[in-house]
């Protein structure tokens, strides 16, 4: 049985394997080129990410706010931005301090402490984006509903 099955099994010749393998590799390479920004954040092994930590919702909001403020935001500005964009009030100071310790945020050393997102923080934001997190979704929802209402024709009597 073993011998017969082995002899009856179709097998691609070595040169065909090489030829097909090379052709597929070219296409995979093109696909990787298209996705290179995403793949820079990814790892094939481990947790699947390359130095891009997971962010919980609150941390994601703070990092997004700091990113939008482009290095000019103090803790108060961050609080304000989060409130305006999400409608939520966060306890910003302890989170900012922790994110700074974790290397996701950096503060200016002179004058007011103004925060900016570090490279690691940018990677974390990139991961959150790939995971489908959205910064302004809380305010986008009602705004979208308003737009939909405006677009709808009035009901006929």
């Amino acid at each position, binding site marked *: *049985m*073993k011998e*017969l*099955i*082995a*002899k*009856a*099994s*179709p*097998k*691609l*010749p070595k040169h*065909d*394997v090489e030829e*097909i*393998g090379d*052709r*597929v*590799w070219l*296409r*995979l390479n093109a*696909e*990787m080129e298209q*996705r290179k920004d995403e*793949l*820079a954040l*990814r*790892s*094939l*092994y*481990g*947790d*699947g*990410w*390359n*130095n891009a930590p997971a962010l919980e919702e609150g941390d994601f909001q703070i990092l997004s706010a700091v990113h939008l403020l482009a290095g000019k935001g103090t803790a108060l500005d961050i609080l304000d931005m989060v409130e305006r964009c999400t409608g939520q009030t966060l306890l910003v100071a302890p989170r900012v301090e922790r994110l700074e310790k974790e290397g996701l945020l950096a503060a200016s050393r002179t004058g007011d402490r103004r925060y900016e997102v570090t490279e690691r923080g940018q990677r974390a934001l990139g991961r959150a984006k*790939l995971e489908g997190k959205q910064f302004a979704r809380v305010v986008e929802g009602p705004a979208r509903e308003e737009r939909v209402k405006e677009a709808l024709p009035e009901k006929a009597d």
Partner: protein
Amino acid sequence: MSTPTEPNKTNGMFQSDFETLYLDNREMVLQAAFRLLGNREDAEDALQTVFTRLLERPKDQQNFCKNPSGYLYRSAINEALHIISFRDRQKLTDMDVDSLEIPAPEADSETEADILRVRMAMAKLKPKDREILHLHYYENYTCREIARMQRKSLSAVLVKLLRARTELKKWILIQEKQDEAKKAQHERIDREGLPEASEA
């Protein structure tokens, strides 16, 4: 199956890890798909799909990390089965059985006939039956290993293997009977000559 690639425990450069993984496993994936599909183009599609899916985030990253080669092998089989069911390839495989590229056996004509019968019988089997026979008799996996690989119980694998063997034997017998009938017909034609064409 080739030696499983040792998983890299640290997070590294995706592209270079991917290339190494591809080069180490492309032949195994391609041959596994080809054995089921019996068609070069479809096997190429399967190879492409299996590795393209890896570029997207795998849903079960943990399973992939535990045994990348095993994961790829399962993916190849699943993709081949998917291609078969989606394109209704079974019919084509039956038709294409003569075009399968099998190295010419060096044995005598009786053995050749046996091999041909097994080929025909294998082509008649359901893809999953064909696969379990391959895994056990061709890839030399034990039933326990197949059970682990397919995430099934050992008894389920034993039953499946038994059924696949029975099915294979049934088709081999059918082939033998057909061959005998053909042989008898040829002998009769040789003895009596071609029957005259009936008048319209």
